[in-house]
């Protein structure tokens, strides 16, 4: 079979035609939203797109190590992007949803703090296990000096590995990614929640207090769905593993921004259509 021969050729190269097609798709989806639900729906969709882009951009910061990291042969947290993003993002989303009644800004900040804290705890415990459990120091394989602390890295790097543990810059990247992802997920949830709270009573012929469980549940489900779609697309962009913001793969983020914007616009449009048709 050709599967073994045809390895994924995802490099850092951009595909200009596809980027243009992506932007055109985004505009078409926005126009459809403006057509079916001008005002409320369009505003919600723009919020959803911003949230999706925040998630897509945020995931690039998270130090994802994958299977090599589990064996101490590459830096990062030893699991896949989807799991890490789901952990941090959903922690943020739950925090933000809990604070939803406190107002827009507070809810989004709470979401960001929730995601950031989840990543901070994860990163700390990962380093704890690496240093005290596996007996390896933290060293980056991609840069000679930590961009933040200026600590040199190669002396601590074992031969035959790409680095190991979580250097300080990866830790900061993880927390930054958690904050962006949590805030983005919360933004999607809040936009959809306000849309459903405004429109569902008419659609279902019920009082706003009665439809609240439906609005919360549908908005939450959609927010989780969109979060996972954006996180996995970003995972495809970085093809699995990344060390953090200092990794050369980080420069691929423009592609993920376009992909996340289009994917969020598509999913957001579907979410809006539920209450408009």
């Amino acid at each position: 079979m050709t599967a073994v021969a045809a390895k994924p050729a995802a490099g850092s190269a951009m595909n200009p035609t596809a980027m243009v097609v992506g932007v055109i798709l985004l505009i078409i989806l926005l126009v459809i939203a403006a057509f079916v639900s001008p005002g409320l729906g369009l505003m919600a969709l723009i919020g959803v797109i911003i949230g999706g882009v925040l998630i897509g951009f945020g995931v690039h910061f998270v130090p994802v190590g994958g299977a090599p990291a589990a064996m101490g042969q590459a830096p990062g947290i030893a699991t896949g992007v989807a799991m890490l993003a789901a952990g941090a993002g959903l922690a943020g989303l739950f925090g933000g949803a809990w604070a939803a009644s406190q107002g827009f800004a507070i809810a989004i900040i709470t979401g960001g703090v929730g995601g950031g804290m989840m990543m901070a705890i994860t990163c700390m415990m990962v380093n704890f296990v690496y240093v005290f459990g596996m007996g390896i120091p933290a060293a980056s394989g991609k840069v000679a000096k930590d961009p933040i602390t200026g600590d040199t890295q190669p002396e601590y790097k074992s031969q035959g590995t790409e680095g190991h543990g979580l250097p300080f810059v990866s830790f900061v990247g993880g927390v930054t990614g958690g904050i962006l992802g949590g805030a983005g997920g919360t933004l999607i949830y809040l936009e959809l929640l306000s849309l459903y709270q405004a429109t569902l009573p008419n659609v279902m012929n019920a009082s706003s207090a009665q439809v609240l469980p439906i609005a919360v549940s549908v908005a939450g489900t959609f927010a989780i769905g969109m979060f996972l779609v954006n996180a996995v697309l970003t995972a495809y962009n970085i093809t699995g593993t990344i060390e953090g913001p200092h990794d050369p793969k980080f420069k691929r983020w423009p592609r993920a921004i376009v992909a996340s914007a289009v994917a969020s616009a598509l999913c957001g449009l579907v979410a809006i259509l539920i209450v408009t048709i």
Partner: protein
Amino acid sequence: MTVKVEVIEGGVPHTKILIAGLVCTIVCLYLSYLNVVTNTEMFSFFGGLAAIAALIWGSHTIKVLCSYGIGTGVPSAGMIAFGSGVIAMLLATTIKVDVAIPIVALVLAAIIGLILGYLANEVLNMKIPAMIQALTELAIVGALTLMGLAVLITGKFTFVGLTNGSVTLLNSVSMPSYQVSFIGGGLTAVAFLLGAIAIQHPFNACLGPGWKQDRMLMLTAECGFLSMIVAAFMSFALIDAVSAIISLLIALIGWLYTYGEYIRMSKRDAYAWLDSKPIPDVEGH
């Protein structure tokens, strides 16, 4: 990532599994419509069977996609399948013509999956030949599995059926409540993960040089029935007890059979195995 997944020839071709899975899922979903025709909830279990048929097809799609070594881990494919599927499924349930809902879900999910596949393959420059088709299939599988589990739990697949419930007060007065329902009660999230785990686990567990198609698909069926058992328990809250017991019995029998078969196939494919009893009886000490 450095992990290489071997591609092994043989077994039933993917197209055949695709067609069989799709037909079985749609037929089972429509058989659950007997609930409406006969005005009972006895046929809810067809929803669970639809979900299992879709899962079997989906886990083979994941095998096709992940054989290219996408580098993000197998679970991510299950997550994107259900992330895009739940969105399509919820919109499809709001269609006014009840009979069209499964087909609309299929078409909507296909459109969403197609666009996501294009984004992954072209915008993100993955350049994997199977990518677009696989993500399209996975979105359909996600949507239909969720719809199947929704039918299993509530007996219906309309938005009204999934959001309306009732609570009985003082054993006599029945009051409508949106909270006692599939969507309002948050069961969507449980169904989401029950399906997502069942779809991504089999290939994740069976991949490698010793991969055998029948063993992986049997594991999928086993995971599907396991999810169906949990969903059947949840259905006690929303459908009548007799129907829920029928679903539970079918799920239990199916799980026992597929589990036994899976263990048999694992022993068949193993180089050697020792039946070490859990705690050996030690006598005379």
